[in-house]
């Protein structure tokens, strides 16, 4: 367990920050070049398809981070692992940012393709609900300082919020929505050409590296906060 002590963790954090800084811009520039220049225009949507390269990774990241936060909160409630609490606190703002970005870029994609900025259809509404859950999470951290109640509130929000995740995923199949069904399937054949799939994964990788960088910075801040409180006892 000494491997996960704050002293050892901060050494890995510093090394990881350096590593991400060294490769991030190269991957971002390659990803942006493919997304904006080299990837083909869609036969139906024209150049608006390029919005996909920021919209889809943002949505995936928003959903994945919430799943991670929810599982960590429940595990923290059961096993009382302090590190998990710090992880949840550091991840929540990143998840909120990417959920908001997926909604805004989706709206900018919706106007030229559907003719409207917003519709209360199942996919859009469930993504909006995800954003609300993130806001509730962040508000809980800010306004509930009582260490006894906070894990209970976070667990309750996690259980309610995690129900929303399969609704987001299957909303386009369960209901008739404006939003198109998934083109990328992890099990089965995807209906998207590799000339579009490669830039999509490059942009996903660039944004994931960005998320990791912000997470590590926030996590390090949380460790310093704890050490600062205990400095006189060291």
């Amino acid at each position, binding site marked *: 367990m000494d491997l996960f002590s*704050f*002293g050892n963790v901060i050494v890995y954090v510093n090394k990881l920050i350096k590593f991400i800084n060294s490769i991030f811009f190269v991957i971002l520039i390659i990803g942006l070049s493919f997304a*904006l220049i080299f990837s083909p225009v869609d036969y139906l949507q024209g150049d608006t398809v390029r919005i996909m390269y920021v*919209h889809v990774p943002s949505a995936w990241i928003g959903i994945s981070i919430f799943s991670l936060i929810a599982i960590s909160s429940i595990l923290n409630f059961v096993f009382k692992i302090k590190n998990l609490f710090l992880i949840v606190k550091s991840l929540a703002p990143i998840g909120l940012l990417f959920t908001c970005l997926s909604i805004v870029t989706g709206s900018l994609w919706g106007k030229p393709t559907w003719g409207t900025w917003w519709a209360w259809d199942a996919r859009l509404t469930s993504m909006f609900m995800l954003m609300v859950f993130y806001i509730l999470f962040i508000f809980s951290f800010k306004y509930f300082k009582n260490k006894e109640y906070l894990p209970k509130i976070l667990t309750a929000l996690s259980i309610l919020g995690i129900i929303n995740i399969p609704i987001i995923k299957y909303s386009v199949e369960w209901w008739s929505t404006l939003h198109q069904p998934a083109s990328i399937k992890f099990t089965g054949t995807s209906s998207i050409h590799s000339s579009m799939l490669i830039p999509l994964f490059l942009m996903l990788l660039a944004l994931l590296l960005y998320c990791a960088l912000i997470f590590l910075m926030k996590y390090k801040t949380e460790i310093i906060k704890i050490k600062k409180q205990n400095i006189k006892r060291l």
Partner: protein
Amino acid sequence: MIIEFLQMGGYGFFVWASFFIVTVSCLFLYYRARKTLKKYEKEFVKELESLPIKHKKRITKSSKVIGSILASQNKLS
């Protein structure tokens, strides 16, 4: 050719606005996270400086966290 690229087949506003919003938001969150980290590092060092020298030396030697914070603060100054 450049104008054509910027126009994005008539959808330039939607495409560029999407990429612009993502870039600005990511830069903002990075700036906020970095600023907060540096603020707490500085406050931590200040608090460390206020400790008696013996105590300070002992914990600086024994704690990796403190060593790492001091190293990043030295890089800044």
